[in-house]
């Protein structure tokens, strides 16, 4: 039943909020060492999927395996980048400190981050081009810079699988490029990266494979095979118009 080769296998996962099911019977095996886009319209349950995998939301049914074992056992292999708006950026702390939080999972209960951790955190900031801002209060960073700090924190987790929730929302073009570059480097090191994404224009450019989601799994596979007009129409329904005589996709509404 479970595929021990796959970094993330999801079996028959359903999530229900108070009133209605949000995700129904998702079955998915993520290919290892790829950049994977989770694509779908608003309210399709993209963030919900990630949160359910990470155990942040109760699952109505189903199981999730990380390299064949439960998430609890494999927690140290997983890095998570929440949506930027989910935290209070007025929190009294600086960028380096936020990145250091990425080390907490490895430190265990009572150990404090040491000089080595600081060095490592600094190198993570360097990777996202933020070393100059290490001591800057986080509310004084721009949206793009905040997102880079979050990315650096995920790098500091030194994980094998990364989950990122809308990392490109509200960031400048330079940051978007920088993020993609870091993600590609991660991929080259054999890490698996799942990204919630909603800009259809860039999907083919960024991702090796996709997962099309609208309450249920519509299609998944390599971008070439699964990112087709027909699948997109199934995913987005009437909200997607396809201009005749061109491959361009337009989102209406």
């Amino acid at each position, binding site marked *: 039943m479970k595929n021990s080769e796959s970094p993330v296998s999801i079996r028959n996962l359903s999530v229900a909020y108070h*009133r209605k099911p949000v995700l129904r*019977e998702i079955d998915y095996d993520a290919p290892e060492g790829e950049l994977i886009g989770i694509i779908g319209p608003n309210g399709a349950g993209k963030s919900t999927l990630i949160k359910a995998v990470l155990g942040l939301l109760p699952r109505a049914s189903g199981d999730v395996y990380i390299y064949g074992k439960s998430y609890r056992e494999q927690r140290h292999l997983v890095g998570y980048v929440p949506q930027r708006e989910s935290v209070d950026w007025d929190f009294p702390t600086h960028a380096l400190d936020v990145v250091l939080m990425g080390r907490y999972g490895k430190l265990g209960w009572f150990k404090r981050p040491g000089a080595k951790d600081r060095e490592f955190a600094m190198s993570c900031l360097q990777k996202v081009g933020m070393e100059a801002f290490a001591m800057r209060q986080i509310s004084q960073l721009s949206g793009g810079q905040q997102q880079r700090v979050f990315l650096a924190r995920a790098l500091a987790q030194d994980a094998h699988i990364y989950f990122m929730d809308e990392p490109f929302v509200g960031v400048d073009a330079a940051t978007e490029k920088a993020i993609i570059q870091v993600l590609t480097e991660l991929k080259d090191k054999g890490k698996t990266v799942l990204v919630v994404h909603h800009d259809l224009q860039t999907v083919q450019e960024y991702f090796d494979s996709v997962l099309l989601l609208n309450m249920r799994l519509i299609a998944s596979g390599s971008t070439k095979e699964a990112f087709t007009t027909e699948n997109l129409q199934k995913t987005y329904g009437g909200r997607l*118009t396809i201009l005749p005589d061109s491959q361009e996709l337009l989102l209406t509404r």
Partner: protein
Amino acid sequence: MDLLQTMNQFLDNPNAFWVLAGTTILGLCSGVLGSFAFLRKRGLMGDVLAHAALPGICLAFLLTGSKNPILFLIGATITGLVASLCIQWITKYSRIKEDTALSIVLSVFFGAGIVLLTFIQHSENGNQSGLDKFLFGQSAAMVRDDLLVMGIVATALIVVCTILFKELKLLCFDIAYGKSIGFPMGKIDFMFMFLLVVAVVIGLQAAGVVLMAALLITPAAAARYWTERLDRMVIISAVLGALSGGLGTFISAIGYRLSTGPLIVLSATTFFLISMLFAPKRGLLARWIRRMRTRRQVVEDQWFENIFTLSERTGCNQWTDKELYAQYPALSKQRKLLSRLVKQGYIIMELQANGEYQISLTQTGWNKAYETILYKRMLEVWMMHENEIDGVVQQYANGMNREIPKEVVPQLQSLLKKHNRMPTLPRLGEEVL
């Protein structure tokens, strides 16, 4: 008949009657104002304003030297307004969030009040205002004049709320929209704060600080469970507030020497709990039943869908349970479902010699599967072609409403044919499969 007797005794006592009238109208008034405060997410304002009234009362006494309730009212109203302005300033001009601002203002104003109070107590002997009365209220000691003032002010507040209902509704619902159509929302907000302050202040004497905090929010929170409409919510909240006031006073009057304030709070909480559990639609019980029903529905739909697709694919209409589970492992957890389906006459299960069950659909069962799959596929194409078809697909998509309107059915069926999604096996008529 004991109760009747006590009732009679209670009503014979003219003072008790006045107190009952007073707390009832107080509950009514705070129920009305509370529903707006609740919707404006200002539920804790009542608590803050009640505490902030103390320095006002003390200042009024210090400056005038008289114990006139109307002067107290004016003093408390002024400090209450200052407190609400302070909260606005703190949140607007610094990075401090609203909850912290509320706490700061509440504790500092109250601290100042205590200082003033002890100052009064130490400088003028024997003229104590009685802090505990301020905190817990002393409705039994209210005289007719106090009640008269309270009744008049409360009635005035209710009248103002009725006149300004539309504006207050805008305030709770959409301030930006209100501004865009030319209402002075800042002024309306300030006026609402003023009304709230007055309501708290008139209640303090009868009910005390903690009770006013409760009376302003609990009936409104309870009323929210019963309705989705603001006008009804205000009325229900007012009724619940009045009932809590009356009930609390009554229990307090018939014995045990319990003070009125806490009893009114507990009555209000009881109404709240009843509403939370048993209100139709929004109550916990109703929600739980609905969730169970949805879950059952989802599982059942899934089963019929799987069976139908299996038949379509294999052309077979009989399986052993083992074969089924091999195809759909998820179904193996649904043993209860099978026995229910047998009972409802949708399937037949026969025990084979080898210990496995032979499962086959009856005619009604087959047609049910057909309906289910057709419904699901129609929804699918509807979502794909949302813009070409009239009607709102979302209200059907969550499975609550299973009636697809007749006028779109032919359109959907032709689309199904176009996409090759029409069920390949037919419905069953009278003839046996």
